[in-house]
């Protein structure tokens, strides 16, 4: 994510329309990428981006400058995505943790990455194919670095449910990626 010039932030705090537009132009693609990661539907993701960015602009005076501004914006947008998911999607977060599955899955995690350099588009496609519940927990835990306790709080689920969703998400991702591997293997041969 590109670093925002302090003058743009100050301008936005004053409500300067030019600075607001500059801020949007600077971060729209990255923030929309975050939306797309959580909500694959383009129209919904655009709604969330507009709502999230409006919140960023109207609450920018609360940003005191003691942290990373880009991280703060990302958190606002992620929260917006989660609110949308909580409101409109049944995430099917019902499965409970099975320790055996965790152990086995962790063991062969590294098999996935070593040989095949996927493009960003392929990674995006694989994430978007996950069911809502799997995708949300995977995004929060693996990509946005939240802990299971935090995910449980945010999604109002148990910690075990969060863990089980993550395991199943990874399992599903491996299946999706393996199909691509087999395509690569055939291509090589």
């Amino acid at each position, binding site marked *: 994510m590109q670093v925002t010039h302090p003058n743009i932030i100050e301008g936005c705090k004053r*409500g300067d*329309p030019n600075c*607001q*537009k500059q801020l*949007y132009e600077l971060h*729209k*693609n*990255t923030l*929309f*990428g*975050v939306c*797309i*990661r959580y909500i694959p539907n383009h129209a919904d*993701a*655009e709604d969330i*981006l*507009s709502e999230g*960015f*409006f919140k960023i*602009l*109207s609450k920018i005076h609360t940003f005191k400058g003691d942290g990373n501004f880009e991280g703060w914006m990302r958190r606002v947008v992620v929260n917006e995505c989660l609110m949308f998911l909580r409101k409109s999607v049944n995430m099917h977060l019902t499965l409970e943790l099975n320790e055996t599955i965790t152990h086995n899955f*962790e063991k062969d*995690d*590294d098999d*996935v*990455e070593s040989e095949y*350099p*996927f*493009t*960003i588009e392929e*990674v*995006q496609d694989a*994430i978007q194919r996950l069911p809502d519940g799997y995708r949300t927990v995977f995004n929060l*835990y*693996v*990509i946005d*670095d939240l802990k299971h306790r935090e995910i449980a709080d945010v999604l109002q689920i148990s910690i075990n449910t969060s863990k089980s969703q*993550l395991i199943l998400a*990874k399992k599903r991702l491996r299946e999706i990626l393996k199909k691509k591997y087999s395509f690569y293997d055939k291509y090589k041969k």
Partner: protein
Amino acid sequence: MTSHFNSDFTKKARQIEASPSDAVWLKIENRLLQERLEKHKSMQRYFIAAASFSTILIAGFLIYYTEIQTPNITIAQEISVENNSDYGYYDLKKLHQLSEAYKNL
């Protein structure tokens, strides 16, 4: 667990970017304008309320001075006539002079 899962995959997932349509900025701009308009309207409402309150206050004072204070002045004048103050004495004297003049006619 994160470190086990595909650091390259995670890195690339963090780099996902997509470009939204122009309609998104238009929506945001529209919301910002609406917000400004709302602020302006609420300021207007505040001024109207303040103006109405001060008008009522001024009208109240005017009513108080014209309807309540004026009769007091009249009563004071009547009292002064009854007590033979200068004003009342002058009137009685004048009346007496007039009646005397009538008698002489």
